[in-house]
């Protein structure tokens, strides 16, 4: 079996190698890929949509339909993970663990025992070893807001610099994941519940598709942001630029929510207890 597989892989590789001889040279400015369609994008992106970052312009405007489905793919992944993993039935355990927050001492309360009644001093945990490191917690508490601020900058500044809705959304999501890693999943879920993240994910994609639909309802075709001009009170070029910003915000929202949702489900195998 192994040799057959290696032979197949090598055969595949040598076929490709055989083909590379006819490839256009790497970095050749006269290669067909650089000659045919891309000059239009390079020369017109700024004229058409007032976006200096050509990649953003192509991503959200010329090929905006692709990007809408890219967001839908990530949304589908979140949905799929939830569908596959989430378990709603909790195992009844005959012992419960509580941590005294100021001292970090863990109380193990057997069935029938009295549950500590001061919720401000005790927190419910799921295993004896649940990370509670002061240094990590404090560092993350300091870092997370700046990460989030940077993420918002990345979303908003995607027109002029690398970045955009997708990257910013991932970074925003990563900040919440960092919070979940540094404390525990339970407290993160308390801050941003699963319900919120699911609704936010669909709202994000809905912003994108809704913008497209609005263009259609305003008398143009789907995703033609130029049609938003009367609503945004600007010229059609600036309307395209603003339209791109709106859909980027939608993408950012959806991607952030889905990343958090994915992490919630994968890190706890759908149980949403202590997580990593």
């Amino acid at each position, binding site marked *: 079996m192994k040799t057959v597989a290696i032979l197949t892989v090598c055969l595949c590789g040598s076929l490709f190698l055989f083909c*590379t001889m006819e490839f256009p040279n790497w970095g050749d400015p006269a290669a067909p890929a650089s000659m045919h369609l891309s000059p239009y994008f390079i020369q017109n992106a700024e004229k058409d949509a007032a976006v200096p970052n050509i990649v953003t312009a192509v991503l959200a405007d010329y090929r905006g339909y692709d990007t809408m489905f890219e967001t839908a793919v990530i949304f589908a992944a979140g949905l799929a993970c939830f569908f596959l993993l989430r378990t709603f039935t909790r195992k009844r355990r005959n012992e419960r663990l509580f941590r005294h927050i100021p001292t970090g001492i863990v109380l193990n309360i057997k069935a029938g025992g009295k549950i500590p009644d001061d919720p401000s001093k005790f927190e419910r945990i799921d295993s004896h070893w649940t990370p509670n490191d002061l240094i990590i917690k404090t560092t993350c508490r300091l870092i997370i807001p700046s990460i989030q601020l940077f993420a918002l900058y990345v979303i908003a500044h995607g027109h002029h610099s690398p970045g955009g809705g997708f990257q910013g959304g991932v970074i925003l999501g990563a900040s919440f994941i960092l919070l979940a890693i540094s404390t525990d999943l339970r407290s993160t879920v308390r801050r941003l519940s699963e319900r919120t993240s699911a609704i936010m994910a669909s709202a994000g994609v809905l912003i994108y598709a809704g913008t497209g639909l609005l263009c259609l309802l305003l008398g143009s075709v789907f995703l033609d942001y130029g049609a938003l001009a009367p609503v945004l009170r600007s010229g059609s070029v600036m309307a395209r630029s603003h339209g791109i910003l709106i859909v980027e915000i939608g993408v950012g929202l959806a991607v952030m929510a889905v990343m958090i949702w994915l992490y919630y489900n994968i890190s706890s195998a759908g149980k949403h207890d202590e997580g990593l």
Partner: protein
Amino acid sequence: MMNDLITMIAAKYNYWAFIVLMMIGLYAMIVKKNLVKKIIGMNIFQTSIILFYISVGAKESATIPIIAHGHQEGVIQATAYINPLPHVLMLTAIVVSVATLGVALALAIRVYNQYRTLEEDDIQSQINQI
């Protein structure tokens, strides 16, 4: 002769690296029995394709596809900027690959919960026993 060889290597080595990575990914997907290894192989395979597309878009003596400020008045030379289209396509491909990864890991966790192992041959022997 020697010069020709060097120019050919310079013009193609990126594509060769893509082929090597693709072979690594394919090998891992076909031969490895561990499911997480297979998933890693799948990701390597996908990134190799991204490498291919980005190499197609590369352009010598050109800069990143963001129009320089102060360029607005003059005519924009297409040769001055790298081809942006493959970048756009590959952004989508990266998103697709992380989405696939999420679903794959979710399935792998379900498989583990069912059989308590991630090795494909162990699972197969468990299935055959029933």
